[in-house]
């Protein structure tokens, strides 16, 4: 149907806990045209990842040990720049405090609050990919969280697509 052509691509992935249930849920939503046309300062493609912690313990993140990669249709995976403060300080220093607060890689994702029906804690991770290497929409993303010791593949699943 024609309406589907403008729908964003939603990629999803999960990490299972010890009890087999989802512990963390990830999703990246990409609007194809704007992703291809836009680049931050002409240098970076930006992908925003939603990170939900459904578990009862916090997830510790590490900007130096965690890794996000874009899996391209051709060629090697492209790693994202997570630590912009040290990776591209002139660009980082030029941003406002509010923007830096939003873009900075989080240090932890709090556990789901106690109580039935409590919503899981959500943080957003912003991954900057070099624009000259990511020239098309990635097929999937791989997110490795050091503290969990797992790499999760975040990819498009037709059955899980949002309406």
């Amino acid at each position, binding site marked *: 149907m024609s309406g589907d052509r403008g729908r964003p691509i939603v990629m999803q992935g999960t990490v299972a806990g010890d009890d087999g249930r989802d512990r963390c849920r990830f999703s990246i939503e990409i609007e194809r045209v704007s992703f291809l046309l836009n680049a931050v300062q002409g240098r970076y493609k930006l992908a925003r990842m939603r990170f939900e912690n459904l578990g009862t313990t916090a997830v510790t993140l590490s900007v130096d040990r965690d890794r996000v990669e874009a899996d391209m249709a051709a060629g090697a995976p492209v790693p994202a720049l997570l630590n912009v*403060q*040290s990776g591209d300080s002139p660009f980082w*220093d030029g941003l406002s405090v509010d923007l*830096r607060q939003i873009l900075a890689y*989080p240090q*932890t994702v709090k556990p789901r609050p106690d109580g039935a029906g409590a919503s899981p804690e959500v943080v957003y991770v912003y991954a900057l990919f070099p624009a000259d290497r990511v020239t098309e929409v990635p097929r999937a993303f791989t997110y490795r969280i050091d503290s969990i010791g797992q790499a999760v593949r975040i990819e498009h699943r037709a059955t899980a697509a949002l309406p």
Partner: protein
Amino acid sequence: MLWKLWDILTGYLKDSPWGRALQPFLFVVVAGIVAEVFAYEFVRTQYGFSPDLRVFLLSYFSVRIAIVTGALLALLLLLRLEPRPDARPEPGRVAAFYRRNRRSIFYKAGVTLLIGTCTAVGFLVRSPSRVSHITVRFMGLPENVRGEALAYIIYELNRPQRQWHFDVDYAPFNELVLTSGEKERCSSDPQPLLCYTEQMAAGRGPVIAITDRPLNGAYFATHRGTASVITTADSGSYAPLTAYEYLAYTIVVQSVLLHLDMNGGLPPDAFAPRSSSTGDVFQFAPDRATLKSTILAAKLSPEEESLIFNRFGPEYLGVCANLISLDWLYSARVRTNLSKVFGVSLSR
């Protein structure tokens, strides 16, 4: 009794040759004394704070009354010394009146202007400062402290007073937010957490950061300019008081420190290392474990009261004395809310 004394005095002055000239001066002096008494009572009843007489007499309240009294006395004296016109003015002839009394008019206007200016300068010099609001930032809370319960306590601090208020910033602290220059500066600072807090305070006003990490070479809290950091890492020293009681107390103390530092500086001997202590709020605790004694019997020394009274006024001082006592925290309402809503029990 007082009126009788007044009658006797004025009666005596009426009879003496110089008494009549002295009477208005005496009246102004007595009015000044009465104003001082009323001002003292006003401070006592309005702000719930009974200052020591010496503290009150050195306060801007008392000094302002003295300035006005002095100004009126000076005006009386100088107007009596004015040059007399050569002849009586002719009624109805303004120009002639002006010409004849020009010297007198200029003298009176000049004297009034001079004394008015001096009084205004005196008022300005002895005016209390307005304090700024303070942001509290959770840099990392210990596991036994719930952020929402601490936020409730901080909101309760805003309730009984209108002098200043606390904003709680819930954004998690992240070193990665700093610019590369800020990060470099803070990594070489002996107190990196304090340096981070200073960066947060830049451009947004004073900040108090709360952390569970130990401070480098300091216990409980450290302060510089517009930034203070409070740590719960020394919890063993204030136990069995809970972290909530400790934080409520230290937040108030650090707030006053921030205000003092931003408006003329701290007390000269604030937290100067010494081996003895009288338990005053701004005194160094010679033994870490004595902090809980200071919290339980929190008080300001007369010198500190005088400093705060003169810098921020009696209302601020009254609020400050109330807040550091923690009576508001132990009130039935707050205690019940903490217990029923947050599951927090206080130590006493």
